[in-house]
């Protein structure tokens, strides 16, 4: 076997065969290898869910840090982490899983500030940012910063406090990580109340599945609220203790790993087909094989599609 025939066309291959690395035989081997990989991870997930699991690298501490970093970089004062807002954010996330919606307003009309007021957080201004299907905290905050309306929320000088929740559950029948960020400015003076305490870990798994209702609304930037509510002094938590929260115990983040395997394999296949096509075109070889450029187009489709589904959504 000529070494050249591994990568590019060689006359010894004849007119009907591609280089060995992308020959029909090689494609069969690739397929069998991938099938074996798929069967292995399926069995591992069933037999040892503690090894392979749905996981993300999003945690409240880094979300909080990234949020304040973005604010300080833009010359805006940082916000402090508030436990009432965090509880409201967690309840909102759980509500989204329970009633299966991806929106600022629930199917029954419950608004973000209903959750905030439900925690007796009496606010002057409040706002909400949502994110789903991201794998890192930085990715979430960067996506919010890239969207003008979310950026406005994130860098709003009127907000003094923030609450954050990262919750895993099932949305539209698929494992999803929801991030809820609720901003607020309490009516009372903030200086009077500080209560550094243990920070609650707002992660949970919700498995409720209900009606599939979808509604998309614009993010709430601010909301004046004049109704009377039972006033309760908000608890402000200073982030002076390290928080390390991950929402899983899985050893390997299966979502990231499988996407990487697919991506790298597709890129390898793309490179091999491109080398062959360029060589054939440059040397004007006559060949009776399928259209190389069409295969390249198809592999490119797979790569771009994987990149699209890797990126999460914001609201």
């Amino acid at each position, binding site marked *: 076997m000529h070494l050249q025939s591994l990568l590019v066309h060689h006359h010894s291959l004849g007119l*009907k*065969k*591609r280089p060995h690395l992308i020959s*029909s035989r090689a*494609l*069969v081997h*690739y*397929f069998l290898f*991938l*099938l074996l*990989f*798929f069967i292995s*991870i*399926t069995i591992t*997930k069933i037999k040892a869910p503690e090894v392979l699991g*749905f996981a993300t690298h999003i945690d409240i501490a880094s979300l909080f840090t990234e949020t304040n970093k973005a604010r300080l970089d833009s010359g805006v004062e940082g916000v402090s982490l508030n436990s009432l807002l965090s509880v409201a954010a967690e309840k909102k996330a759980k509500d989204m899983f329970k009633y299966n919606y*991806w929106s600022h307003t629930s199917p029954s009309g419950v608004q973000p500030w209903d959750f905030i007021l439900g925690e007796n957080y009496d606010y002057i201004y409040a706002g909400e940012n949502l994110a*789903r*299907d991201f794998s890192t905290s930085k990715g979430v905050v960067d996506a919010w910063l890239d969207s003008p309306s979310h950026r406005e929320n994130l860098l709003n000088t009127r907000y003094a406090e923030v609450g954050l929740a990262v919750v895993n559950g099932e949305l*539209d*029948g*698929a*494992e*999803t990580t929801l991030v809820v960020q609720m901003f607020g400015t309490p009516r009372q003076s903030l200086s009077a109340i500080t209560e550094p305490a243990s920070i609650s870990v707002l992660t949970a798994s919700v498995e409720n599945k209900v009606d599939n209702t979808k509604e998309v609304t614009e993010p709430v930037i601010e909301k004046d609220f004049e109704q009377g509510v039972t006033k309760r002094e908000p608890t402000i938590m200073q982030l002076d203790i390290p928080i390390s929260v991950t929402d899983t115990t899985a050893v390997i983040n*299966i*979502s990231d790993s*499988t*996407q990487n*395997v*697919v991506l790298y*394999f*597709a890129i390898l*296949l793309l490179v091999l087909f491109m080398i062959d096509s360029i060589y054939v075109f440059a040397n004007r070889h006559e060949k*009776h*094989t*399928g*259209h190389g450029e*069409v*295969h390249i*187009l*198809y*592999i490119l*489709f*797979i790569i*771009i*599609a*994987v990149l*699209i*589904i890797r990126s*999460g*959504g914001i609201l």
Partner: protein
Amino acid sequence: MMIKKIIFSHYFLILFFSLSLASLYFLSLNRTIQLVLFLSASVFYIIWGIGHHRNEDRKDKHIMLEYILLGLIGVILTLIIFFPFF
């Protein structure tokens, strides 16, 4: 006429992939819909490859096999990508 047919056939494939990508990007965060879009692209690719070469009158089994194998690789890659979510 034949060349026109081939060019149209290629444009049709490009249009299908572009629309699928646009749907993935703009329309849905729903994993089930994404899975269906992925799988339909692979199935469409196999059908397109076989149909296109029949039209070109190049019904060589090596060529057909190439499209089928690449399509099947696409299907298994899709299953691997979406497996963690279900």
